[in-house]
């Protein structure tokens, strides 16, 4: 009897293994959008950079997380969002976060939007500044163009006098 039970358990494991593995690995935004119906209402792990603004609305709020493919809205309790220091924008890389939450293809709570309701948010890496110095070629082009422009304006002014 126990041998039969072991076999059943083994077969069950083989069938479920890909599903379990799929649930524990972070899912990409491309996969979520492509197989939205499959992932709908399932718990998933999603990793990416927080971009734009951290929008706290009372006891909860929104962040938008971009994994390099697409940005997806993440709805979370405000206390999770308070741990996020920096959102990505020009000159700044936002905090890299790992979201564990429920994916919604068409969220009934939020007007049918495709979103993730976070059960936990973990900051993997802090954001940083990415401002770089102005490249030399741009500076040279600017100076050259300024000289050409001044010459044209000077010639135009001179010919107008005549």
């Amino acid at each position, binding site marked *: 009897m126990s041998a039969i039970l072991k076999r059943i358990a083994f077969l069950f494991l083989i069938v479920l293994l890909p599903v379990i593995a799929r649930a524990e690995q972070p899912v990409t935004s491309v996969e979520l*959008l*492509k197989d*939205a*119906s499959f992932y709908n209402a399932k718990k998933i792990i999603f990793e990416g950079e927080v*971009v*734009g*603004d*951290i*929008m*706290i*609305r009372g006891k909860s*709020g*929104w962040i*938008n997380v*971009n994994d390099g493919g*697409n*940005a*997806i*809205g993440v*709805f979370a309790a405000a206390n999770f969002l308070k741990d996020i220091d920096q959102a*990505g*924008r*020009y*000159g*700044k*890389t936002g905090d890299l976060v790992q979201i564990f939450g429920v994916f919604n*293809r*068409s969220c*009934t709570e*939020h*007007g*049918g*939007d*495709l*979103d993730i309701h976070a059960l936990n948010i973990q900051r993997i890496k802090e954001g940083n500044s*990415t401002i*770089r110095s*102005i*490249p030399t070629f*741009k*500076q040279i*082009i*600017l100076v050259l*163009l*300024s000289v*050409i*422009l001044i010459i*044209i*304006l000077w*010639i*135009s002014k001179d*010919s107008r006098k005549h």
Partner: protein
Amino acid sequence: MLLRPSFQDIRNIGYYLGKIIVGLALTMLIPILVGFLWHEPEPVIDFFIAAEVSLVVGLLLMKFCYSQKDLSWMQGMIVVALSWLVAMVLGAIPLYLSGHWHSFLDACFEAMSGLATTGLVLVQDLDHLSHSHNLWRHLIMFIGGQGIVIVALSFFVKGFSGAFKMYVGEARDEKILPNVIHTSRFIWLVSFTYLALGTISLGITGIALGMPWQESFFHGACNFMAAFDTGGFTPQSQNILYYHSLSYEVVTMVLMILGAINFKMHYQAWIGNRKEVFRDIEMLGFFTTVIITFFIVGAGLVQNSTYQQGIILFRKGFYQLISGHTGTGFQTVYPSQFIAEWPHLSLVGIIIAMALGGAVCSTTGAIKMLRIGIIYKALMEDIKKIILPEKAILAQRFHHIKTLFLEQPQVRAAFLITILYLALYALGTLAGMWFGYPFLNSLFESTSAAANVGLSCGITEVNMPAALKITYIFQMWAGRLEFMSVFTLFGFFLALLKGK
């Protein structure tokens, strides 16, 4: 027999083209100012470079082509057609220098998409684009929505008889006020008033949603320009989904509808003649086609059970429909969701809405409601002719600001432009299919480009073939200018080559 254009023709064209380019260069001061405000040194340099290139080109044209003669019809049309192409190239310079576009062609695509108020995007990593570049994307939409030449007419030209020729060349054949310069200035007055009101309402909404006030008003200004000018760019990659807000959707929807209304209608409303809204053939046509196309979209979504609740179906379906019908291109679904989740019937409903468009003398593209109304009236007249006795005299009338009798030249012109638009939609569809995309996807994207809408089902992306990008650029340009000035430009080049 084709007559080769004279040297004087070329001088006149060059001179006025130069003036418009100088005007474009001066508008680049606005993103420069924004760059200083947000401490973005490299983007400021990008815009200085672009402004200087534009000034050099513009001033050289004005110097070497100096002319005091007024423009002829042919010259006016060519100035318009060329100025849109030149504005695309010069407007693409700061975009390309930012490093957010893979090639100069991609930057040109984005610039034409902005100028023609289409809203299809090829930008990479939009979420890290600078404020100054982002503002420029939206500003060219605002300039293009009003008409590049209207900018020049309003601010840089004191008044000359060639003004009306350029005004018509930009697909605005209706004057609101007797003088075309005054008409241009009225259009700007309306636009700036709405700019202030729209930015404030979106700004306050953004603050209520938890955004910092500076970002909120910046997004407000950008989204206003994209909504009122029926463009469809947004400062973030998720489009309107970024805000997760019903109130933001409602405000943008109102702005989209305002942008799709004839400026003449705005004038009537401004002078207190609000009854016109319920009598005008364009307004009635718009309301009717919105109801019909929403019925098609809704029927598909219900049949397919795409959304589980009626209210969600309405919110998603109606927003995409209004966005498509007004030619805006704002989305609250991801492009890939259109194809993966929306049924074909709903997509056809959106395609029909995109192909019809808003009012003439508005910022929308596509066939437009006045032409649809005229064709409908002509059809009714023909049916009546069959039903009524042969001796009966028929006089079909329609109301467009005033009551007008339907005349053959109007019907002919409406049919002609409609056929040209259908041909333009077909051209992009065939090109899409040539490159291996399915029929419906190709039709969707092509109609979106040619009707200057900007809704995407996913074809428009950085890896699409270069020839398809060029096809869409052509569609956006020809669709925005409503063909006449584009044909004149082709005729001009043909005459240069083969004329005697």
